[in-house]
């Protein structure tokens, strides 16, 4: 087999394996987890009818969505109305292409596309996700979806800035945009949120923790806003906008928006894990070159970290109330933007001073 063919086959295997066997089931079980965790937080029981502890509920949900009537209202702009759900789902899944979800398995690096502009690709694709929502809001030709779409657009612009600025300190430190290098660096120098790990005596590590923590907080909050999760779910805002941008959608088209949101949550968590929480690395576990079992453990560790973050997403959703719109804008432009900006100078000063 010539190298090109084997490359194509291996890439296809990775795409199918990661998207269809891991991400999509994870998306549907994220919905289940959301329902179950929210229920437990609110002293309810949650889904418990379909299968043991309601574990087959996602399958039943999928059946329901597929069998429902796929209704297209007469007043919508048909082409964009059909396009929007795809646009909501595709970027969320595409982003995962550059994220290293494991070390190596049988010598094959566990990343679909190890490109040197990794994080730029992530931002470029992730910001396309908003088009799904804006187009849905516009094509629906009705006031609530329209408001939802407009809100989503302005929210995206305000938080994209702090999202981008928050990661700059990391790349000042590493000097490489490739996400596999980011993980490699964290293995050698401690996770980004614990830059002092390993070299406990060095004050540089402890000082560096300050801008890293600020970056982490700003980035995590901006991811919440990017994925339209509470407390930033203004485009949806059931109580004011009757569901917002997806008000006019039904059956599988609605499900695509719904699942797109969860897919975006998963990719958002994957980026957070890769940038700040050491990717697939777990202290004491060697990488895949020491045997395939470690390769599998690395992959498992990566998704376990994502699952933990998803739990936090859900936990926050069922704790915090929604922001008012002006508060959201103020927070984005007046606080996070400035904090992220100052943080870059702080990190740069520390890095120059200690010559890291």
């Amino acid at each position, binding site marked *: 087999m010539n190298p090109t063919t084997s490359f194509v086959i291996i890439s296809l295997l990775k795409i199918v394996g990661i998207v269809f066997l891991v991400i999509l089931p994870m998306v549907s079980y994220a919905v289940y987890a959301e329902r179950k965790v929210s229920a*437990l*937080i*609110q*002293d309810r029981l949650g889904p418990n009818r379909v299968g043991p502890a309601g574990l087959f509920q996602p399958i039943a949900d999928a059946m329901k969505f597929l069998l429902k009537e796929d209704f297209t209202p007469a007043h919508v702009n048909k082409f964009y109305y059909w396009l929007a759900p795809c646009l909501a789902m595709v970027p969320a899944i595409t982003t995962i292409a550059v994220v290293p979800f494991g070390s190596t398995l049988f010598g094959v690096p566990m990343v679909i596309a190890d490109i040197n502009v990794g994080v730029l690709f992530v931002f470029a694709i992730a910001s396309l996700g908003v088009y799904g929502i804006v187009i849905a809001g516009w094509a629906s030709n009705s006031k609530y979806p329209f408001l939802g779409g407009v809100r989503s657009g302005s929210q995206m612009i305000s938080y994209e800035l702090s999202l981008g600025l928050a990661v700059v300190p990391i790349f000042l430190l590493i000097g490489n945009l490739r996400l596999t290098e980011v993980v490699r660096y964290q293995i050698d120098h401690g996770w980004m949120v614990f830059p002092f790990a390993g070299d406990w005596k060095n004050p540089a590590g402890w000082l560096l923790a300050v801008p890293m923590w600020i970056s982490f907080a700003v980035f995590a909050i901006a991811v919440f806003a990017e994925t339209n999760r509470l407390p930033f779910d203004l485009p949806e805002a059931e109580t004011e906008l009757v569901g917002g941008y997806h008000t006019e959608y039904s059956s599988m088209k609605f499900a695509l928006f719904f699942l797109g949101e969860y897919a975006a949550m998963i990719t958002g968590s994957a980026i957070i894990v890769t940038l700040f929480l050491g990717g697939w690395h777990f202290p004491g576990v060697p990488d895949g070159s020491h045997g395939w079992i470690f390769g599998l453990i690395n992959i498992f560790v990566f998704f376990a970290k994502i699952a933990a973050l998803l739990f936090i997403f859900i*936990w*926050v959703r*069922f*704790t915090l109330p929604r922001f008012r719109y002006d508060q959201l804008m103020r927070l984005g432009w007046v606080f996070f933007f400035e904090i992220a900006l100052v943080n870059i100078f702080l990190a740069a000063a520390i890095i120059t001073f200690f010559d890291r």
Partner: protein
Amino acid sequence: MAITVPRPKLTWFERLYLPAIVAGMAITLQHFKNMLLGRTKVTMQYPEQKWDAQLPEHYRGAPALVKDEAGRIRCVACQLCEFICPPRAIKIEPGEIPVKDRFSKVEKYPREFDIDMIRCIFCGMCEEVCPEQAIFLRKDYAITGLTRAEMVHNKEKLLEIGGIMHGVVLKWNEKK
């Protein structure tokens, strides 16, 4: 008259919001933990657990026709219940008892007796008005059906729910 509700003055610590957020997160996590450990009392799991044993004596469930000890349908088709029923759920078609019958003195019996359980409001008027103590509200409450027709209880169904009633007035017995 409009009342201006004064906004509380927040200290800078309160205006930081972060302590409040952390406190809120702690509260929800506490609830989550208590549920996981089974410390929170949850509602009864209906189809598996039922409340039937605790139903009070006066519980008003599905109306049903009863028979007496001799196995006779107690209803004499006087149609009082049909008239009193507020949502008009009852439909009776009276028939005559043949002269040779042991109970021929009773004269009438219901040939058809339908109660539309979609209409019935479980008010108990039928039980109250019946001069024969022939119709009682039993304790069946889970009345379901897939069609409207299925939800109409006919005479057989009503007698099946009702069963035999002991210890009621037996005014026809001495006239046999």
